[in-house]
């Protein structure tokens, strides 16, 4: 805490020379950065070493046989990772799009028009998203086992088969079932964030459009959605990561191992294919890669999405 006390000025440019407090602050920050990056660095290091090297020299050693991407190749091919990425995509892409559509509709209707139950509706959505998933899982599991879903064939690409809309007449153990619960659960969060954002849009825009004879659907799609593009981009980034990172829904609501999205498949694969720590590290990092790429390229949107939900209210 001493670092806080002493460094009074906020503009470093205004302070010539090196001040000890500032040095201390940076030293602390750099130490923390090292602590924070180390687990990741260690995983990358383990993933790049051949298993024979670590068996011979232990994990805490310099590489004697060089570093290579061989472990990644092994994991990628043997555990058929592309296939699990595909499982994730068919769940997450429709999930994000549907969530944004539904949430923007609710937010539009509840912020641009004054209904009697506006606040209640927003509270139902927001509170629903805050419930721990496990509170609803028992009845939800029953619903998934007992909701009839038509079997209308499937779209097959090699080993991959996307059922239209079920291959067992139920929601349980189906891609669409996982998409559905993601959409419903995350609509709560997205509605909360988007309605906070839409409150800042002047209602006069909607009003004058209505006076001009525009239908509400048109106003929603042509006027309000374009105005919300920054918020929608932020939410899309965040929702992609949330859904990509899901473990619980896929664990409970899917039975077939070969339908699992990459994140939850990781747990199964670790016993079967990732037989040593080097391969586990490679597999975990490969599974982590898409969100990391999203973060690197869309970090502004990502952080905006998180903070929109908490700072404006």
């Amino acid at each position, binding site marked *: *805490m001493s*670092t*806080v006390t002493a*460094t009074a000025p*906020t503009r*470093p440019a205004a302070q010539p020379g090196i001040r000890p407090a*500032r040095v201390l602050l940076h030293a602390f920050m750099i130490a*923390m950065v090292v602590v*924070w*990056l180390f*687990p990741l660095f*260690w995983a990358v290091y383990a993933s790049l070493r051949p298993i024979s090297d670590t068996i011979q020299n*232990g994990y*805490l050693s310099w590489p004697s046989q060089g570093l290579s991407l061989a472990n990644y190749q092994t994991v990628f091919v043997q555990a058929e990772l592309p296939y699990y990425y595909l499982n994730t995509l068919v769940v997450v892409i429709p999930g994000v799009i549907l969530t944004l559509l*539904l949430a923007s*509709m*609710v937010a*539009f*209707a509840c*912020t641009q028009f004054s209904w009697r139950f506006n606040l209640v509706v*927003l509270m139902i*959505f*927001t509170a*629903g998203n*805050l*419930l*721990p*998933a*496990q509170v*609803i*899982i*028992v009845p939800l599991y*029953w619903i998934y086992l007992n909701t009839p879903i038509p079997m209308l064939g499937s779209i097959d690409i090699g080993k991959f088969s996307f059922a239209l809309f079920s291959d067992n007449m139920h929601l349980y153990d189906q891609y669409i079932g996982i998409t559905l*619960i993601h959409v*419903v659960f995350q*609509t709560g969060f997205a509605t*909360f964030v988007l*309605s906070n954002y839409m409150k800042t849009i*002047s209602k006069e825009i909607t*009003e004058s459009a209505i006076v001009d*004879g525009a*239908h*509400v*659907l048109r106003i*929603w799609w042509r006027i309000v959605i374009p105005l919300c593009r920054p918020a929608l981009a932020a939410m899309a980034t965040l929702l992609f*990561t949330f859904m990509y*990172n899901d473990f619980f829904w896929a664990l*409970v609501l899917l039975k077939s191992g070969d339908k699992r999205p990459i*994140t939850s498949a*990781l*747990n199964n694969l670790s016993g079967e294919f990732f037989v040593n*720590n080097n391969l*586990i*590290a490679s597999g*975990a990092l490969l*599974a982590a890669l898409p969100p990391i790429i999203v*973060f690197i390229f869309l970090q502004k949107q*990502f952080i905006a999405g998180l903070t929109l939900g908490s*700072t404006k*209210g």
Partner: protein
Amino acid sequence: MAPARTESPEAGALAGSAPGRYHVLTRYDRRILMLMVGIPLALDVLLIWGPTIASIGFSFTNWSGIGPITGKNFVGLKNYQQLINGYTPFWPAFFHNLIWLAWLALIATPLGMFFAVLLDREMRGTRLYQNVFFLPVVLSLVVVGFIWELQFSPTEGFINNALGRVQSSNIIDWLGNPRINLFAVLIATSWRHVGYMMVIYLAGLKSVDPTLREAAKVDGANEIQTFFRVIFPVMAPINIVIVVITAIEALRAFDIAFIINQGKNGLELLSILITSNSISEASLVGFGSAIAVVLLVISLGPIVAFLSQVMRNPSS
């Protein structure tokens, strides 16, 4: 695509933004708006609030999940009595959730807030520091679990190797020993939680009126005084959000504990007991639901706090 627009006064008026200003929506527009809210709302009620209520109902039965549920299944408070008196994992799980909450609330969240306060000052490299602390937030807890297993693994992990404790006589079983594995898992969780809290708190700090800070400085307050006497109080809304998120995260804890050892042997959690009782191993739907109700009741605290905070200024 839209039917002919029929201006009908009986379609009703919606209050405009300012009192006294009304615009008339057509019946068609009203129906569309109702659908726009109604369809998502129906899904939300059907798949989230319905099951929440159903959990409460199930908790008073001995239903197995198969076949119809009848009056004979009603057992009153028996599940709750059994939970409190006869079911050994319940209290450990309850206290593990409590420890989880205490750890996040007293260590991880304050650390994230501390980072935010430090990074709020304009210093070189702020962006870099911020991105590093934030990086784990984008990772799934499954990946976080795997990455930390490489640290904590008894013979192959970094920590024991660095400490030289890899002989069977002096090995530290970070993830297997029920006395310490909860804390190992909490360290892994905090790796992610700290960055999350930092980003939210930082956004809050950036929105604080800078003149407040200057006024405090003019009055001769040092930085610590300025923070605790001026900044912290005006940050009250964010502070509540931070507390709520921390509590919710502690109650939701599931993934890492499940990855490590399926939530057994020192890592029991309420969330895991719910699923293991009613879905995976047994089909004790009623009993599992009783645990779900316990979790629900605890969750209502932070949820109500959050709602009363963010909904305080109703949509104008």
